[in-house]
C-alpha cells in the first residue's frame, strides 16, 4: 500500500479515502469512518493494519468554473429563481460537479420554485423529470433523508440533478407534481420506501408495498430479513448477517 507516499496516488480509484487533500476532505460530506484493512466488522483483523482509520467522503462542493454547460445552467437557474420570486441566494445551498454530472443542493422549501425555473426558463427547458430517488443517510444528522430529482432537457441535451434533504424528525419535502406530473408515482414510491412526505401531493399513498405495511423498507434501519438456508449440509446465513467488507 502507498501509506509511505507523501502525495496521494492520483491513479488510485480509492479517491474516497485518504486520496482527498485535507482541506477538501474537511469540506466534503463525510459518510463513513472505516477502520482496519478490510472493512470487516465483528471478527478480528489479523492483517496487522487494524489501526488504519479512513474517512469516506462524498465529493466536495465545487468552485467555479464548473466546466462545460454547467456554468450557464447555474447562471440561468439563479436568474430564473429571481423570476420565480426566490430572491435570496440561499436557495441553492451548494453545487457539486462530479463525474461529469452537476448536482444542485436545494433548500427544501424552494424546491417547487427551482423545478418551475428549470422547466420554464427558455435557456434551461428541462422538459422532463427523469425520476425521483430517495437515499437514507442515518449518520447525516439533521439531513437524514435525501430526495434526488433528475431532470432532462431534450432541447439542449442536458441533465441536472437536484438534491433536497429533510431531517428524520420532520420528513417533509414539498411535492413537485404540480410542475412535473411525472413525479406522481415516483414521489409515492419514495414515500413508500423512505417515509418522506411530499406535501401537496394529490394522493400520497403507498405504491409498491401493501397499504397496511409497517415501516419504510429501503431505509437503512429497516432490516433486509431472510432466513438461513441449508444446502448440502451447510447453512448459508441470510445476506444481511454475512460478513460485510464495506
Amino acid at each position, binding site marked *: 500500500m502507498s501509506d509511505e507516499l507523501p502525495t496521494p496516488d492520483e491513479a488510485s*480509484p*480509492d*479517491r*474516497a*479515502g485518504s486520496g482527498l487533500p485535507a482541506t477538501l476532505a474537511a469540506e466534503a460530506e463525510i*459518510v*463513513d469512518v472505516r477502520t482496519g484493512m478490510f*472493512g470487516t466488522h465483528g471478527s478480528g483483523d489479523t492483517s496487522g493494519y487494524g489501526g488504519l482509520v479512513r474517512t*469516506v467522503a*462524498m*465529493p466536495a462542493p465545487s468552485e467555479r468554473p464548473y466546466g462545460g454547460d454547467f456554468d450557464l445552467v447555474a447562471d440561468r437557474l439563479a436568474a430564473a429563481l429571481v423570476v420565480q*420570486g426566490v430572491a435570496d441566494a440561499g436557495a441553492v445551498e451548494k453545487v457539486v460537479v*462530479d*463525474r*461529469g454530472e452537476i*448536482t444542485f443542493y436545494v433548500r*427544501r*422549501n424552494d*424546491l*417547487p*420554485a427551482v423545478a418551475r425555473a428549470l422547466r420554464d426558463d427558455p435557456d434551461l427547458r428541462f*422538459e*422532463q*423529470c*427523469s*425520476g425521483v*430517488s*430517495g*437515499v437514507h443517510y442515518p449518520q447525516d444528522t439533521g439531513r437524514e433523508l435525501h430526495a*434526488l430529482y*433528475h431532470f*432532462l432537457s*431534450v432541447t439542449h*441535451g442536458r441533465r441536472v*440533478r437536484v438534491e433536497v434533504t429533510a431531517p428524520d*424528525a*420532520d420528513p*417533509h419535502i*414539498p411535492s413537485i407534481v*404540480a410542475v412535473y*406530473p*411525472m413525479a*406522481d*408515482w*415516483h414521489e409515492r414510491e419514495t414515500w413508500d420506501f423512505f417515509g418522506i412526505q*411530499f*406535501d*401537496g*401531493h*394529490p394522493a400520497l399513498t403507498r405504491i*409498491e*408495498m*401493501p397499504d397496511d405495511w409497517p415501516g419504510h*423498507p*429501503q431505509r437503512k434501519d429497516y432490516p*433486509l430479513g431472510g432466513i438461513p438456508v441449508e444446502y448440502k449440509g451447510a447453512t448459508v446465513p441470510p*445476506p444481511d448477517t*454475512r460478513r460485510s*467488507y*464495506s
Partner: protein
Amino acid sequence: MTGNVDRGTPPDRAAGDVAPDDTDPYGIALAGVADGDGRVFTASGGDWDDIAEAASSLGEERIVVNMGPQHPSTHGVLRLILELDGETVTEARCGIGYLHTGIEKNMEYRTWTQGVTFCTRMDYLTPLFQEAVYCLGVEKLLGITGDIPERASVIRVMMMELNRVASHLVALATGGMEIGALTVMTVGFRERERVLKLFELITGLRMNHAYIRPGGLAQDIPPGALDSIRDALAPLGEGIADIEKLANENPLVKARLVDVGYLDLAGCMALGVTGPVLRSTGLPHDLRKSEPYCGYETYDFEVCTWDTADAYGRMRIRINEMYESLRIVEQCLDRLQELGPAPVMIGDKKIAWPAQLAIGSDGIGNSLDHIRQIMGTSMEALIHHFKLVTEGFRVPAGQVYTAVESARGELGVHLVSDGGTRPYRAHFRDPSFVNLQAMAAMSEGGQVADVIVAVASLDPVMGGVDR
C-alpha cells in the same frame, strides 16, 4: 390534480412534535375532492341503506370494475380500476406492486458484481438493457468508462439490439393476442425464439443472463456464434415482414388501433413518457443518438418516428425499430469479424477476475482450464480471484445517473456508493413504471376495449414496474 401549492412550505415542526390534524399534509387534497366533482360517502357511523340510496341516485350504469391483477389482457399482474358509464371509461387508475420483490434493497447487501444478477431480473423482457445500464453506471463511478475493451462494447451493443428485437416481438405478439390477432402472437413468439436461442448460445441462458459485468463481459461469445447470429438475421427479418403483412394494413387491426390511446407531445413530456410512445408523437428523441453510450454514435441507424401519437403509430414504430436493430446487429457482426480475438474484460486486475468463466466440456460446472488457470498458474491470480469473489472491489464514494434507450424508453439507474464493496443505493428509473402513469390519460373517455389497446401500446412489463 387538485390542491397543489405552488411553493409548498411545510410548516416548521419541532423535532418529535406530533403534527396536529389541521396540518395534515393530505388535508389540502382531501378538501379539494370534497368541494370538487364527486360526492364523498363516509361509511362510518351511518346506515348502509342511506349510502346505497345516495349511490343509486347517481345512476344504474355507473360501476367500478376491477380488471386484474390476474386478467390475461393486462400484461401480467397489473390491476386496472375502471369507473364505467356503460361501455365508456370515465376514470381509470392503476394498481401496481403485485410483483414487488425488493431488488433494489437486496442489491445493497451484495457486491457490485452480484448486483448484475439482481437487476437482470427486473424487466424480464429486457434483461440485457438492465445489465448494460447498471454496468455503465458502475463503470462511471469507477471512472473506467474509457477503458472498456472495444470488443466488449460491440458485443454489448449487439446483445442490446437483439434484446430490443425480442422485446418488441413480445410487445407486438401480446398486443396482437389481446385484440384477437392470434397469428401475430404465434409469429411473434416464433421469431422471438430465434433470438432466445442466440442468447442461450452466447450467455448460456434464455433470460436472467448476468452476462454484462462491470468492466466488460462475463465471457466472450463462443466459437461459431457469429455465423449462428448471421444465419438467424435473414429469417428474423422475414418473420418481422410476416407480422407487417398481417398487421400493417389489416382493416381489423387498424379499426382497433388507429386513434386509440392518443397522447400528444405535451402529454408525453409532462408525464415523462419516453421510448416508442414518445416517438409516436413525431419527436425523434432517442438516447442512442442524443447521449450515445457503448459507441452508438459510430453505428449507422435511423430513429423511427410516426406522427399519429396513437397505438397504431407505436406498433409501426416497433416494427420499424426491429429492422433498424437488425441493421445495427449486422454492423456489430462485421466489426467483431474485423476485431478478431480480443479481450472482453478490462485489464485492471483489481476489477476483472483473473480468468474468464468457461463451462466444462460436459456442460456442467467450470471448465478445468478455467480452474487450472486460477488455481495452478499464478499465486496472484488465486489471491485476486478470492478477494474479488468474496469481498468484491471498492467503488469510490459518489453518485451517478446513467441512462440507456431500452426497448420501452429511458432506462436510468441512480447509483450511490459510500466507498464500499456494495452499492449504498441503487435506484432504477424503469420506463414501464413511468410510462404506465400515462394509462389514465390515454384511456379516460374511451371504451373499455380501448383500455386494453392503450395498455398494450405502452407495453409495460410488471417485473420492471414493481422491481
